[in-house]
């Protein structure tokens, strides 16, 4: 792509310091990412997910929880999941549909 075309295409343009609509974030103090991860692990353990299934909620880049995996790494995450599951366990749940359903639940 030529330089001229690059400048014409919005996707290729670089951020500029004097751009008044440049996107920024709001910084808020407090909170703990480990607590967030712990809560999520507990939630899915209560729905019956096992260690590997829970791990994939963080390791898959398509999910935004992947940010925690990126920040802390696989070892930290696996250790946390094992610790939480060791403490709370997970529930074994069975689901039984009452009648044959067409359409949506089929």
């Amino acid at each position, binding site marked *: 792509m030529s330089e001229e075309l690059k400048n014409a295409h919005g996707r290729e343009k670089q951020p500029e310091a004097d751009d008044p609509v440049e996107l*920024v974030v*709001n910084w808020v103090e407090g909170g703990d990412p480990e607590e967030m991860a712990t809560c999520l692990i507990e939630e899915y353990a209560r729905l019956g997910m096992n260690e590997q299934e829970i791990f994939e909620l963080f390791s898959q880049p398509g999910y935004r929880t992947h940010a925690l995996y990126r920040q802390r790494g696989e070892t930290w995450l696996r250790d946390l999941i*094992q610790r939480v599951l060791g403490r709370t366990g997970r*529930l074994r749940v069975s689901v039984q*549909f*009452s009648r044959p359903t067409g359409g*949506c639940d089929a």
Partner: protein
Amino acid sequence: MPKVHNWQLGRPMLYPYEESHPKRQFAFVFNTNRCIGCQTCTMACKSTWTFSRGQEYMWWNNVETKPYGGYPQYWDQKILAMLEQANPGGQVWNVGKKDGERAPYGVFEGKTIFEAISEEQNEEGNTFQTTSGRVLGYLPGDDEWDAPNIYEDTARNPANRRTPWGGEGTSLPAHRTWFFYLQRICNHCTYPACLAACPRQAIYKRPEDGVVLIDQERCRGYRKCVEACPYKKPMYRATTRTSEKCIACYPRLEGKDSVITPDGVPVETRCMTACVGRIRMQGLVKVAKDDSWEKDPENPIYYMVKEEKIALPLYPQFGTEPNGFYIPPRWVPRDYLIQMFGPGVEAAIEAYVYPSRRLLGLLQLFRVTQKIISRFKLIEGQKVGESEVTLPSGKTKTLAIFNDTVVAYDTDGQEVVRVTVEEPIYERPKQYYNSI
């Protein structure tokens, strides 16, 4: 201006129209504790309703990262700041005035978006005149709509300033502080600000299910609804020169789609049914003439909102009485949550973290079926184990687990599904697989 009762504020409030309520109300509960921000709901909605020309920046369902994000940008911060400026220091709750169903969270003593723009205020020199003259609001610019989710999880600039740009484009720093995901659709409010502001009376609330719709034939695209809605859920479409908004997937709600609902039984919306994290449940609640919900503890939405009070309205202080309710995320600083969900936060989290048997059963029903669950029942079983839970105070408590079965019924009263909690399972770490 007439006065209407708003149970979420615990008091009467000013509203441009007389009080009138549908027989049943579309309502939903989102469990923010389970959301992983996968955006499947967002894409399900997009691919169903807003994939056409002129709708490129239109996301009737969006999921934004809090506290960083917003769609449109800063929507909640802006309207909160406007209310604070209209009533400095007065936007407070009196939690000592709780009064059953009429004021379950206490009384909000501040001003709503309808009251902050009242005639009395204008005479006193209030500068927040909107063009509708009926609702305090603002019209977001194109730059606020056009980039949902950009830099929400990945910070470009560490300080709350726009310039100078201080990051490296190739290695953006990530947020190191707390966040959670806020799922948003139209709240199909009891007192919609969009409806109040429309000069053409093109917006109406359906008497059969309380869904708020824009009549596309009457709409002239004045954008008063976009300006007035504090949640910023009506959106302008330049190609048709009308405003559009979430329609609560009403063909599904009516059960009239021969493919999706061959048996004619209502099903939940696209965003609800697509949810990967099993965070969403939608229903219809019965509404009385005086704005209260008819007592119906077997209805899952009623049970979570009114009985257990674990699901709370989003920014109830705006005054529109939204019908979307959120189970607040339990890891987030309380001041922030109280501003967002009102003073019921602490009690909601307490009840959620250490749930009753009935609630634990109901939480298993999220996203098990696509049919709208109108009633659920718990069949009690034997105790099968215990699980340790951590309370908000940091103390741990033992939760008894029972072999309970929760049964769900559709709107025709037919049983749809039953979910049984069999037992808690503890797995040995790999290094101890073969040890005795």
